[in-house]
């Protein structure tokens, strides 16, 4: 009897990554929404080091860090693989997932919270360069994973959906259709994917939350 639980937060692209992987593989799970302003005993017990979501619990075994969890999911439920089987191709996928996390998402995060206009301009230019590099990796494919969604697409979920809302709210014009037509086409395909659709937080709710938070001095969590 498989027992799969996911501790998540509706707004978190990290916990949505895990949901997406589980759904792509048809794995049933119990979702437990967390209140990050008021962390539950369960969350603190299951992820004492970082105290963050997502946390996956499989038959009582806990694990944290979304990209680590994605690898676990792919190893445990090998149907509809999200990583290539060939070691070299797998290494490439891991490289790009890391690049997205560190340079693209990391860059966006700095921009979102930067109050100094000149510094923000410099950060936007740097991030632009990273997005250009990432766009090149699509190589004419529908997804980073090829014909189907893979680990790299899942890792890029913030770019695929959340970024659009952030740009709308903040007026940031980093990834636009005229500057990044290929990446924007990927974003369209991503959000239209039948399984991805099920994992996206409601746009109006996301919009309202970003509006409230981007005006505030810093993310509390």
């Amino acid at each position, binding site marked *: 009897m498989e027992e799969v639980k996911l501790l998540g937060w509706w707004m978190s692209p990290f916990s949505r990554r895990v949901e997406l992987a589980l759904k792509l593989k048809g794995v049933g799970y119990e979702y437990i929404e967390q209140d990050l302003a008021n962390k539950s005993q369960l969350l603190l017990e299951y992820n004492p*080091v970082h105290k963050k979501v997502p946390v996956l619990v*499989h038959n009582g*075994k806990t*694990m*944290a*860090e979304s990209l*680590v*969890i994605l*690898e*676990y999911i792919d*190893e*445990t439920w090998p149907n509809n693989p999200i990583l290539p089987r060939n*070691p*070299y191709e*797998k*290494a490439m996928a*891991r*490289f790009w997932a*890391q*690049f997205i996390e560190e340079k693209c998402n990391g860059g966006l995060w700095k921009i979102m919270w930067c109050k100094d206009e000149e510094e923000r301009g410099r950060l936007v230019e740097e991030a632009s360069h990273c997005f250009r*590099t990432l766009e090149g990796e699509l190589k004419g494919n529908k997804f980073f994973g090829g014909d189907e969604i893979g680990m790299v697409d899942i890792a890029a979920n913030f770019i695929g959906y959340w970024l659009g809302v952030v740009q709308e709210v903040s007026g940031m014009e980093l990834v636009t259709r005229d500057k990044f037509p290929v990446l924007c086409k990927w974003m369209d395909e991503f959000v239209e994917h039948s399984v991805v659709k099920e994992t996206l937080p409601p746009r109006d709710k996301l919009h309202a939350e970003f509006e409230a938070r981007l005006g505030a001095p810093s993310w509390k969590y």
Partner: protein
Amino acid sequence: MGEVEEVKLLMTGLSPFAGRIIWALKLKGVEFESVEEDLTNKSDLLLQSNPVRQKIPVLIHNGKPVSESLVIMEYIDEVWNQTCPLLPADPHQRALTRFWAKFVDEKAFASMWSALQMRGKEGGEAALEEAHENLRILEKELEGKQFFGGESIGLVDVTFGSFAKLLDVLDEVMGSDKKMIDEDKFPLMGKWKEQLSELAVVKSCLPPVDKLAAAVQARRNESAAA
């Protein structure tokens, strides 16, 4: 198999990231050629092999480049899977191993590096406290174990080990009165370092003390001249 394996590692002698790859390759008995890079004058090979990040280490296996030390270590573990596994077989244990390797890389290493650079400067105390907090977490993880990998050396040991060894040498060369990984504060980590030092492969991988001393002196001269 009959195929000639060509393994090259683009590295620098002082990089703890390159150090990880050297440890991993040596643990698995893989023959490789080290290509020392001058990072102030990057070679065409480096720029072609890692155009995205333009950093070392880069592993080039039969002409195919792999970058990012954690990615390289997983690749090495999958390709040369007959000896000294860096990752356990059980998926949950693998997830825990990856979690801790990430922690070492993203939290522990970053905070220790900051603390080192800020020694004696404003904010230095706070940086050190953060580094120590991360070391405390790692110390706890060693409870009941010889290595982070359990009874034998694994991914987390290699990820942290080369940096820990470098730190010790750095502390010595800089004449620090207090080690970053202080054995009194972190006794299990002290034992762990000793255990690592006993391994033949680690003995053959120690960073060149003279080179490190020269690098530290050069840095000192630079800041004195500034």
